Structure formats: structure tokens, C-alpha cells
């Protein structure tokens, strides 16, 4: 029998801070974590990317002892730290039985890029005949899920989903169904990404989608996305189990929709995202009128924002004018495979706390984007249900539906 699934634990590391409280404070204040790119020397190759949403003050040695920090690429470190925090936050007692029944489903678009790039630099730039022996296990996209399993002793179904910018939403959608259908008793799920290497930044630069200053989603003067890094993990468990142990319930995850555009590598369609939103509503048993907030994909590129706005209009019709739509990428940047997880944290906290985070850096309305984007200032509003959108290069769309805590 299908069970209702709720979120009882959160862990997050992002440009907005190293824990849930710091992140939520920044989101409420509309404070952006975007700043000058640090620690990446691209002068030799004329790197143009100047600003990024980087995680600052993260010290791996505070989290990993005995040289274990060197076994994990930065993205996997974020995965483990966020997972530990989420489990702790949930207050759940991990008995031996429960550990075997705990699923791990993580999203990551590019895995351990720092490790592979350092290896290639040794080979082709430094003229060395060998690369570091941990290059493979640090680079693999499933390293985050694997290290969470080893670190927390969780031995149920565990895997990673890699669908570019939709990775974390696909992961959470899968975890939702795994717990709902009883294939596991609990799930640690989310996403992590850390890809600020010269090679990756040059590759993004070549796509001509990076803003030279900041990220202004839905604003007429938007110039593109700002790349981000980070990780967020959430604990999913059945409503009844959470109630039975008196857990704090942040929100319910109640639907998931996924579609492919089957159209173009980088140009989105209206139909694909619209069908994904409709699918999430359908599975959740929600009417369009139930939705009061959408955490948009909202990359801040000229291409995404008008198309996403039209897709929302197509699904919600006149009700679209009553929905608060914001892109928190304006604050935590676009963290690719972690984006959906960072945004899920923002969305469930919005539902729980009755505050909708804004779209920061918004300066001017665009006739092509005709919705309510909660410009610059968060808004007090107790909404009953929300969607969180992720749309990936390659035309893969994943939308998650959340409901405010069941009473």
C-alpha cells in the first residue's frame, strides 16, 4: 500500500552557509552568496568567469580524520557532511535493522571534477607519467552515495542519478517512490556538486550562458546564470513512522513528475516542463489551485526564464497570477546536480515557516515574464502546497510536489 512520505531531516552546505539556519536566514533576507571567484587560477587560459556562488569556510579536516579527507572529492565531502547533518536533524535512531532498510539516492551532474582534472594536469601539463591512485574512486559520480553509505553504515538500496541540472530532483523523486512503495523504510536523498576547476569553468564559459555580474532570474536585464556549488540531503520517511516517534515534520513530499522534451540539447520547450509539473500535481492528487509557491528552475538565462514562465501559465492558467514564483538560484547560484536539493530545502522551509524566499537581484519587469516573482524581499504567506522545478540540458525535466505538514 502506498504510504505518505514526509521530510524529517535537513542538511545543507551552500554559498549561503554551512548549515540549515544560515541558509534559511540568507534566503529570508534575500541575501545573495554570489561573489568574486576565488581559489581558481584561470589567468593562464584567459578565464572570463569572474563571479560564482562558492561555499566558503568549509574545512574538510573538521569533518574527516586520519587523512580520509583526501579520499573524497569536494562534492563527496559535501554529500557526507549534509547527510550527517540531515540524520542528526531528524533525530532518528539508526538501529541495525533500520540501517539495512535505509535507501540513499543522490544526484550529481559531474561528480569529482577536481580529481580528474588534477590527474589530467599531472599527465599533460606537469609531464608526469602517473596520476594519483584515487583519481577513479574520487571522480565517480556515485562517490557521494557510496561515502554516505560507508560513513553512516547505511546498507539499503543506494545509487546516484546523473541528469545534469535535474539530478537532485530525479533523485528525490526516486527516493520518494522507494519509501512510498515500501521498498525502504527511510531514505537519505538530495544532491551535491563541486566543479570549480579551470577546465569546467572554461567549458561553461564556451556555452555563453554565464552572467558577467550576477544572476537576475526573470528580470529584464538578466544576463545568464551564476554557477554555484554545494550539497543538500533530506531524510524521507513514512508519515506514520514519523508521527509514531514524535518527529518534527518539515513537509510532505507528495508528487513527482518527469518528462523529456525530445527536442534540443540546450533549448527548452514549454510542453516538456508543463507536462512534468502536471505529472507532479497528478501524482500528488493536488489541483492547480492548491499550489501557492513554485521554486522555479529560474536560471537567469535569456532562454529559460520566459519559457518556464509560459510553462507555468500553461499548467495553472489564471491561477498562475496567485502563485509566488521565485528563483533562489539568485542567491545560492546554479549548483547543477545539487540545485534541486538546495531548492527543496528552501521550499520545505517556506512551507513550514510560512515565508516565501524571494528572487534576489531583480531590477526590472520583463514583458516576456509575466508572473509574480517575489522580487528581492521574502513574503509571509502560509501556502498549502508548492512545486520545485528542475530542467536539465538535454531536455530532461523533473518536478517535485510538496505539501505543508499534514495536521
Amino acid at each position, binding site marked *: 500500500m502506498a504510504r505518505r512520505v514526509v521530510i524529517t531531516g535537513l542538511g545543507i552546505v551552500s554559498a549561503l552557509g554551512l548549515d540549515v539556519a544560515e541558509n534559511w536566514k540568507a534566503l529570508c533576507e534575500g541575501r545573495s552568496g554570489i561573489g568574486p571567484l576565488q581559489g581558481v587560477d584561470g589567468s593562464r587560459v584567459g578565464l572570463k568567469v569572474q563571479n560564482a556562488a562558492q561555499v566558503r569556510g568549509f574545512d574538510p*579536516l573538521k569533518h574527516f*580524520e*586520519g*587523512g580520509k*579527507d*583526501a*579520499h573524497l572529492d569536494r562534492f563527496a565531502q559535501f554529500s557526507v557532511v549534509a547527510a550527517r547533518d540531515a540524520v542528526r536533524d531528524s533525530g532518528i535512531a539508526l538501529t541495525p535493522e533500520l540501517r539495512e532498510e535505509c535507501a540513499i539516492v543522490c544526484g550529481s551532474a559531474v561528480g569529482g571534477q577536481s580529481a580528474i582534472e588534477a590527474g589530467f594536469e*599531472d599527465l599533460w601539463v*606537469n*609531464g*608526469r*607519467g*602517473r596520476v*594519483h*591512485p*584515487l583519481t577513479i*574512486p574520487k571522480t565517480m559520480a556515485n562517490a557521494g552515495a557510496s561515502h554516505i553509505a560507508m560513513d553512516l553504515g547505511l546498507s539499503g538500496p543506494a545509487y546516484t542519478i546523473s541528469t545534469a541540472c535535474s539530478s537532485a530532483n530525479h533523485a528525490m523523486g526516486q527516493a520518494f517512490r522507494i519509501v512510498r512503495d515500501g521498498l525502504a523504510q527511510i531514505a537519505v536523498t538530495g544532491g551535491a556538486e563541486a566543479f570549480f576547476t579551470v577546465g569546467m569553468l572554461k567549458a561553461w564559459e564556451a556555452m555563453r550562458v554565464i552572467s558577467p555580474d550576477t544572476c537576475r532570474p526573470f528580470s529584464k536585464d538578466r544576463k545568464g546564470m551564476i554557477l554555484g556549488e554545494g550539497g543538500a540531503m533530506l531524510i524521507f520517511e513514512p508519515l506514520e513512522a514519523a508521527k509514531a516517534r514524535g518527529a518534527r515534520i518539515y513537509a510532505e513530499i507528495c508528487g513527482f513528475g518527469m518528462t523529456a522534451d525530445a527536442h534540443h540539447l540546450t533549448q527548452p520547450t514549454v510542453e516538456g516542463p508543463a507536462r512534468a509539473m502536471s505529472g507532479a500535481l497528478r501524482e500528488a492528487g493536488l489541483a492547480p489551485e492548491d499550489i501557492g509557491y513554485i521554486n522555479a528552475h529560474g536560471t537567469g538565462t535569456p532562454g529559460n526564464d520566459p519559457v518556464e514562465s509560459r510553462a507555468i501559465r500553461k499548467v495553472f492558467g489564471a491561477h498562475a497570477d496567485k502563485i509566488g514564483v521565485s528563483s533562489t538560484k539568485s542567491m545560492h547560484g546554479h549548483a547543477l546536480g545539487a540545485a534541486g536539493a538546495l531548492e527543496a530545502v528552501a521550499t520545505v522551509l517556506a512551507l513550514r515557516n510560512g515565508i516565501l524566499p524571494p528572487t534576489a537581484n531583480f531590477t526590472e519587469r520583463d514583458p516576456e515574464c509575466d508572473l509574480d516573482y517575489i522580487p528581492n524581499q521574502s513574503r509571509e504567506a502560509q501556502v498549502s502546497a508548492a512545486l520545485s522545478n528542475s530542467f536539465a540540458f538535454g531536455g530532461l525535466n523533473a518536478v517535485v510536489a510538496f505539501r505543508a505538514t499534514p495536521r
Partner: protein
Amino acid sequence: MVDPVAEKVIATLASVKRIPAETITLETNLQEMGIDSLDVFSLLFELENAFKISIPDDDVRSIKTVNDIVEGVKKLLAAAPPDTSVGSASPAN
């Protein structure tokens, strides 16, 4: 410590495990100090760069103590000129 090879091996091991070099002696057993196979691979990689040698897979299996590594490195240094595949890069940092 007067033996420069032993000194370098211990310093490298200390760096891989992020522990003080003073806690390691030639008699230290790698398994007992919590060195797993991945740590060994990392250690050998650093030593290959530092000494410009190439350590064969067969030699790795018999390593149990710090002294085993030191003796192995010395044997390789005596047997062959520095491994040119390491290139002109400076030793591992």
C-alpha cells in the same frame, strides 16, 4: 633520524594520514595504525614521485611495516636509475 630515506618515508606517511611524524617509527605496523589499501596506494604514489622510482605491484603485497617500505625503496634506488616516466616535475608536495 639520520637515514634520509626513512625520514622521507615517515614524513610522507605522516602527511597521508595527517598525523605527526613523531608518532611513526620503522617498526610501526601499517595495519595497526589504520592504514588501509587506499592509503597505501596514495603513499606509494607520493613515494614514487619523491624518489623518482617505479614500485612494482608485486613488491606492494609484502609491505607490513614502515621498515618494509624503507627497505623496498632503498632496493629500488640501488637497482635502477631514477624512473624517467616521472618527468621533470618537482617531487610531490
